[in-house]
């Protein structure tokens, strides 16, 4: 198995061999369910659509994804195993991408465990499966983006709590730029083009677009470029810390 695969396996083991994974998954599923039925009014809506399910994901991920990502680098740094990692015949990129992919895979497993929702809505009516598939795609992309940010921040500090808080803040900023009320603050004095650019840099805008069932190139480009950028930043941080 190639080095990347080994790294992914190692990280995943790190997740699943501790209570961390199970606690996280339980909380994730539980909150998802509660939000969908009670806050989203899924059953009351009478519509065979998973909109009430997906609409809370940006906010759930806001706290849960930094939690998954915070241990990726910070823990290694704290326990000193990062030096060990760097001496192994593992390239920087493999380490960065491997850790990220492991976290993403772990999240994918958690998301996959929400399958009863899909079954439920199919039982209750005749939903548009294409739209639901798009929703899952958008959800995973967004999770990936949050994770990339979280991973990068976790490489900056030894303290997992700080990593968590800072990641949440950054993700939060990128989330609220999509809100009409936030943009209002800027529409007064900023040129329209800038406001539009700000709006188009929100996770919410692109996530909403994908969950409607249409996967636009610009949305895919947004999420993928975000992930790539933060992975790159991650590598830079690790490299800089290594030197210093």
């Amino acid at each position: 198995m190639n080095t990347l695969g080994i790294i992914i396996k190692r990280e995943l083991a790190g997740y699943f061999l501790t209570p961390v994974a199970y606690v996280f998954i339980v909380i994730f599923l539980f909150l998802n369910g509660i939000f969908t039925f009670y806050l989203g009014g899924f059953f009351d809506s009478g519509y065979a659509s998973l909109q009430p399910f997906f609409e809370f994901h940006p906010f759930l991920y806001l706290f849960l994804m930094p939690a998954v990502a915070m241990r990726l680098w910070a823990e290694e740094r704290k326990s000193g195993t990062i030096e060990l990692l760097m001496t192994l015949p593992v390239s920087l990129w493999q380490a960065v991408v491997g850790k990220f992919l492991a976290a993403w895979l772990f999240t994918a497993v958690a998301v996959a465990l929400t399958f009863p929702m899909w079954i439920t809505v199919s039982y209750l009516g005749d939903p548009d499966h294409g739209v639901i598939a798009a929703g899952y795609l958008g959800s995973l992309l967004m999770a990936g983006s949050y994770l990339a940010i979280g991973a990068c921040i976790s490489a900056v500090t030894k303290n997992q709590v700080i990593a968590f808080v800072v990641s949440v803040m950054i993700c939060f900023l990128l989330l609220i730029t999509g809100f009409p009320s936030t943009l209002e603050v800027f529409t007064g004095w900023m040129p329209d083009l800038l406001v539009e650019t700000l709006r188009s840099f929100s996770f919410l805008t692109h996530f909403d677009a994908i969950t409607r069932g249409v996967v636009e190139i610009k949305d895919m480009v947004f999420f993928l470029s975000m992930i790539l950028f933060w992975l790159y930043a991650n590598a830079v941080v690790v490299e800089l810390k290594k030197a210093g």
Partner: protein
Amino acid sequence: MALKKSLLSSSGLLLALALLFVVNIFAVVLFSSARIDLTANQLYTLTDGSRNILRALEKPVTLRLYYSKVLNELPGLSSYAQRVDQLLREYSAVAGDKIQLEVIHPEPFSDEEDEAVASGLKGAPLQDGEVAYFGLVASAEGRAREVIPFFQPDNAEFLEYELTNLVYRLTGPEKIVIGLWSSLPLKGGGRANPFTNQPPPAPWGIYDQMQQLFTVQDIDYKATEIPEEVDVLMLVHPKYLDDASLYAIDQFVLRGGHLLAFLDPFATSEVIPSDPFSPNEPPLPKESSSLGPLLEKWGVELVEGKVVADRGAAQRVSTGAGGTADYLIWLRLLPDHLATDDILTSRLAQINAATVGSIRLLDGAEATLTPLIWSSDSVQLLETDLLQSNPTPEQLLTSYQPDSGRQILAARLTGPATTAFPDGKPIRKDPEAEQSEADTQMPEEETPLVLRIDTEDDPNFVAEAASPINVTLVADADLLHNQFWVQIQNFYGERIAFPYADNGKFVLNALEHLSGSSDLISVRSRGTFARPFTVVNQLAMDAESRFLETEQTLQEQLRQTEAKLLELEQQKTAEEESLLSPEQAAEIERFRNEKVRVRKQLRDVQRDLRGDIDRLEARLKFINIALIPLLIILGALGLGLLRWWRNRVA
């Protein structure tokens, strides 16, 4: 190594950030329309029909979308507004510079608001008194403005059709002219009823929709000529037409004119008023449509005096006492009864028809009949005379005896044809008699006005069709009536149609196809946005019917109990007033208690109506919220226990 080092530096990071912005801006600009539409009905992709029409635009069109920002607070409207905005941008993208799109957010008391109102937009008043706008004004040089006064999210599935239609009307050829020759009051209007002070009836939904697409020319019922500009002739329930009128139709068809005829052996929707001077006399019996000798010359017939009773396609109606029954003469025609490979019917979901006749090819006829709509394979042909006495659904069910195979209910007719008037053009002898009926649509009985011997030489006389005739026949006129396919609601003075069956689509498809434009047809049949919880609805319906049964039983018990009580009370007063035997008192008490008990039962039944649904909800909540977490916890605990036990043992 050196390159790598310099890449992974803080300046590299800044570069990367800039790249991030650039890439995304490029993506937005370059790939603004590139997408994969995963929705089941391709809801976010323009149909080919729209694309064709947009690409063929010759004149520039200006679209002004007015949207009050305050509507963003209403989530349903704001997401629909996004959809509308996005769709309009697509139109603009496909049509290039032929469509100019402006999005305007009118502030209260601004010039833009005045503009909006002046153009014909209807503002919706909000809770705090502010008026919000969400409409479209479309204009093209040299044409009248087209307006969508207020976008209705309920009509979401027709959005693309409405918009394409709008653009088409603004730039397409001058509207096709439909000549409407009808014995049923599609146009509405007429005088207000002086006896009841009711306003004149509104036009039928189908008439409204026809007017949006075409120029509808109402042909006088007694006409003897079909105006030249008529492209498609639409005959609705023609009867008592004399030879002079029939001649006009005969020649129109033989010359290659397009005809859409709704022939009905019994028109349920027809209202035959009783004679105001002899109100006690029953109204005249309903007559079948008739085109005299014409149909025979075309090679077909409307099976005389018969209506199709179809068990397999019957409409379920409510029968008064809270029950439901299949009404055999009201048909609910689903795609398995429609020609899915024909452009007229291919994407229709349901057509509701009532008291339908049967179209048959005559023996030895050279014509070709292409069925569009048909009945089930085993039906009963009922005499229309039976229907004059208004039989109930149950009566029809008990006397149901299938005696015929599949019947054709609508079809395209083509083939050679000859005139029904070989001797020449019939002329009415007494022109003054035509003035006797002032403004009603109801035809008189056949009067001996036409004298066949009086024929004129018509210089344009056509004895035989030069090319195959083009006629679409439908054996029902009732399907045009609102009650079978659409609900019309009043929205601030505008009539808005909410169709629930595809009768309208079918008629418009037919008219359009007959007039030669098929692009709009493909846009018209689209998927739907609405996907309800069928399981929950079914539970609700089942609960309702169970409730009705129980309610009826309990009501009956209550009635009996009360009657008994009354009887006892009356007995009491019949005898000595204040003297009540203990037995009588006990009995009254017993019945009083009974009454209270029954009332309580009724209330319980009402409350339990949602019982099934609530139980389903609770079960689903558990499965989705707690089930898997519980399994995981149990699994983890189990694993932990296992490990602990192993450690103990080891």
